[in-house]
């Protein structure tokens, strides 16, 4: 069927092929295409990447947005196991209307751009010790893999493109294997359900493997799909979208049964999503958060937003139906959700026609696994007229990681230094690290601080080692050993590399250990050492000796009067005099 949808352009060759493969009138891809048709998405980047489709659009505020979805055939054979590196480079052609809208024009005709260069969040995360900073607001814009599966049976699996991520799929039921796109991410999504998304950017985590926090994602939830958020009713400014979270269980209250919808259960846009800028991403396998998205929820894919009553401004693709939340909190929502995917929303009343195909009529619960609902996963219908409102435009981020590092990050990614830096540290933020010796958990500041502990020296221990070593000498007296250990430890800390350093080092040494050297026996040690070793090698001269002696003497003077203070001083002086005399000749 070349023209499966109303208002769509004729199928391209590719799409026809897909059609053949799937035997469905519409593939997700197709649907996406439809969405991104002339309305403004004309400039959508035709993703020639093997696996992903990109659809670009502009958000309400003029921010570029794009959705990434996995082509249906990516999952044909089960778990996707690919290494992005190996994908053939793609030549992109970027036709954008964005300029018209004052958008930043992306690079044109970019050749060989690598998608998903950075996988900041691909590190498997140890969730047991997670620190708050780790989880994050990683909005993985990541690939929302959408894949429609009509009935869960068909859903091969949705593996998330994210490499390295282990799919934590919560429950792959049946055919759906889920791979998580986001590894280790916990869907922190504020349980996108119902109303909570009021704040912007709900950002549902794409977390893979996340079990939908929904109350009961059971059974067929398998949604490998990324449950995308479901926006609550009043998401007025929902900016982002739920990431296509593969494998996410829909957070829906009870996404059970066939929820598996590989489809992207997209969120349910709140009823008054008048200005919902973005859309819920295709959530594959999302179970609609709808109260009972079950069974057919699977509706494959893109159940984008439920029909909204007033799709007046359906900005994004999945527009939750105005007035209807996709996951509906309302009974009638469901069913729709499934609607096969691409329910992109806005099926407004006017689009009833189309809608019906997939969606259970409004008012009918989607559960209605009514015949119309299932199967059709590819809700073709979605593309309702409303779709026309879709603005599209997301700035394609070529070669950029699709993951927004920060919440609410607009897709307008430039070479912002902060962003680059953040991207660099993403891996560091992704999990809990431990010190290697003490095995204590590290705080984020420590991890990011770039302090290198390889050269750490345990002074106390080394001092001790030296002392032990010297202890083994059998022919040295205790004072000698003590002096040797003092001197050796001192020298280890100093950097004495040249002969000229030695006098300075001597002075420092004497100053440092004055208290100890003043003792009679130690003074003798010092003098012997200085004379017989240092002086005889001409490392120090008489002046140095003199200076040292003066230092010692001063130290001695400062001491509280001792009985032998005078004697000591006298001895000192005598020694100094003797030394001077000795060296007076030789120096």
């Amino acid at each position, binding site marked *: 069927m070349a023209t499966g949808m109303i208002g769509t352009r004729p199928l391209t060759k590719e799409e026809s092929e897909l059609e053949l493969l799937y035997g469905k009138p519409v593939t997700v891809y197709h649907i996406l295409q439809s969405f991104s048709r002339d309305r403004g998405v004309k400039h959508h980047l035709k993703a020639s990447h093997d696996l992903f489709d990109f659809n670009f659009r502009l958000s309400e505020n003029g921010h570029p947005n794009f959705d990434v979805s996995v082509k249906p055939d990516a999952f044909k054979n089960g778990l996707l196991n690919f290494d992005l590196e190996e994908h053939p480079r793609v030549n992109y052609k970027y036709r954008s209307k964005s300029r018209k809208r004052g958008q930043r024009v992306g690079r044109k005709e970019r050749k060989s751009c690598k998608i998903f260069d950075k996988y900041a969040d691909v590190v498997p995360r140890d969730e047991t010790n997670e620190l708050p900073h780790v989880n994050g607001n990683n909005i993985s814009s990541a690939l929302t893999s959408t894949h429609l599966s009509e009935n869960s049976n068909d859903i091969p699996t949705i593996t998330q493109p994210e490499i390295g991520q282990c799919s934590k799929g919560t429950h792959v039921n049946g055919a759906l294997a889920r791979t998580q796109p986001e590894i280790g991410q916990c869907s922190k999504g504020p349980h996108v359900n119902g109303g909570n998304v009021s704040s912007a950017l709900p950002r549902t985590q794409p977390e893979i493997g996340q079990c939908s926090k929904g109350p009961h994602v059971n059974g067929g939830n398998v949604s490998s799909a990324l449950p995308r958020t479901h926006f609550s009713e009043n998401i007025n400014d929902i900016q982002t979208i739920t990431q296509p979270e593969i494998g996410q269980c829909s957070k829906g209250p009870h996404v059970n049964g066939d929820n598996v919808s590989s489809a992207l259960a997209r969120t349910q846009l709140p009823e008054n999503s008048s200005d919902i800028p973005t859309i819920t991403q295709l959530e594959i396998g999302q179970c609609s958060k709808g109260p009972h998205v079950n069974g057919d929820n699977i509706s494959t894919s893109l159940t984008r937003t439920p029909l909204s009553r007033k799709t007046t401004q359906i900005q994004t693709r999945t527009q939750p139906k105005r007035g209807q939340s996709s996951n509906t909190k309302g009974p009638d929502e469901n069913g729709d959700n499934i609607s096969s995917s691409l329910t992109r929303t806005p099926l407004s009343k006017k689009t009833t026609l189309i809608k019906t195909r997939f969606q259970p009529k409004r008012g009918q619960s989607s559960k209605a696994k009514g015949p119309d609902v299932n199967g059709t996963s590819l809700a073709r219908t979605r593309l309702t007229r409303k779709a026309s409102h879709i603005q599209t435009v997301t700035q394609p981020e070529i070669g950029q990681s699709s993951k927004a590092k920060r919440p609410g990050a607009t897709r307008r990614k430039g070479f912002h230094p902060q962003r680059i830096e953040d991207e660099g540290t993403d891996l560091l933020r992704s999990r809990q690290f431990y010190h290697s010796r003490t095995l*204590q958990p590290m*705080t984020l500041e420590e991890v990011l601080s770039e302090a290198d502990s390889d050269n750490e020296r*345990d002074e106390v221990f080394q001092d001790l080692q030296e002392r*032990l070593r010297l202890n083994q000498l059998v022919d040295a007296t205790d004072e000698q050993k003590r002096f040797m250990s003092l001197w050796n430890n001192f020298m280890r800390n100093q950097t004495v590399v040249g002969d000229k350093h030695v006098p300075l080092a001597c002075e420092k040494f004497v100053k440092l250990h004055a208290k100890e050297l003043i003792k009679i026996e130690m003074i003798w040690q010092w003098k012997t050492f200085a004379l017989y070793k240092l002086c005889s090698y001409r490392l120090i001269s008489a002046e140095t000796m003199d200076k040292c002696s003066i230092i010692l003497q001063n130290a001695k003077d400062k001491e509280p009067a001792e009985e032998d203070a005078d004697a000591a001083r006298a001895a000192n002086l005598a020694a100094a005099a003797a030394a001077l005399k000795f060296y007076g000749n030789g120096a």
Partner: protein
Amino acid sequence: MWKIALGNEAIVGSLTPSNKKSYKLTNRIQEGKKPLYSVAFNFIDPRFFNCFVSAGGNGINLYNCLEDGGISLLHSYADEDKDESFYTVSWACGVERNPFVAAGGVKGIIRVIDVTDKLIHKTLVGHGDSVNEIRTHPAKPQLVLSASKDESVRLWNVETGICVLIFAGTEGHRYEVVSVDFHPHDECCFVSCGMDTTIKIWSMKEFWTYVEKSFTWNEAPSNFPTKFLQFPVHTASVHTNYVDCNRWFGDFILSKSVENEILLWEPQMNDSPGEGTSDVLLRYPIPNCNLWFIKFSCDLSLNYLSIGNQKGKIYVWDLQSCPPVLVTILSHNESKSVIRQTAMSVHGNTILAASEDGTIWRWDSVTKVAESL
């Protein structure tokens, strides 16, 4: 007191019980199927002298010993990880004398539970392998030593959750450290023993400032300058096999290996750190006790020592007599499984035994005693 000339053979105790003090079984509790590895009375706070805690499987239970022989369960805690198996438990307390229970097990993390709040006060992470024993400092009960399978002994401050010192390294243990005990008077000294058959005596004197700093540390625990002590003061090779329990007896050491006996010996410490000689003074034989990880316990004044064996019997020795006198043997025909640890109450009038089949046995002395338990 001891009429032993050094250099003589150690005196072996006789196995005929004197029955000077006799006990009867007053109660038993079946906790479940998991083996109980540890049971301990609270010797820190007189208000809680009757309370004991038991650890086994992933649960920690607090009980109260009632005067009539009953045992009432006070609290029961379970680790959320079902695979955790607690091997040891010890009482500690915070700076305000609020009692804590510190428990560690196979996961290598130590849970410090605040008994009054019934919450986890701190979780001490850092050991690389399972924790075999936790002991509390007698004078500063916020300090706790943990002996671990990762060959190290760590000193923790349970109030602030900081790992203060780590005793491992060149001269540290070379295999699992199974038991550790603080010196009763010398606050810096402790003894540890392990599967490398050695018993090492350590001193923290040089780093005592760090210990004190740990009480007032208010930054992140991982920033604390944890020091490594690699050299014990003394190493003794008294046994030739795994040593699985050691306790100070004044300045002597009671230690047990898997050779069916407990030895009392005196470490000879020279000035220089390193190996020293040691003199074995007494031997307390215990038949059928050649499994490792069977621990003995004493009462607070070190008058008695009680230990279970793998047949489920309990031997009570009199520590104050020389030659050693066996006080009594406690046995019950239903008590057949290994008794991993015993606990004696403050005056030795109640003996608890934790056994491998998940049972706690309570024996009370029949001689009337004025003081409770």
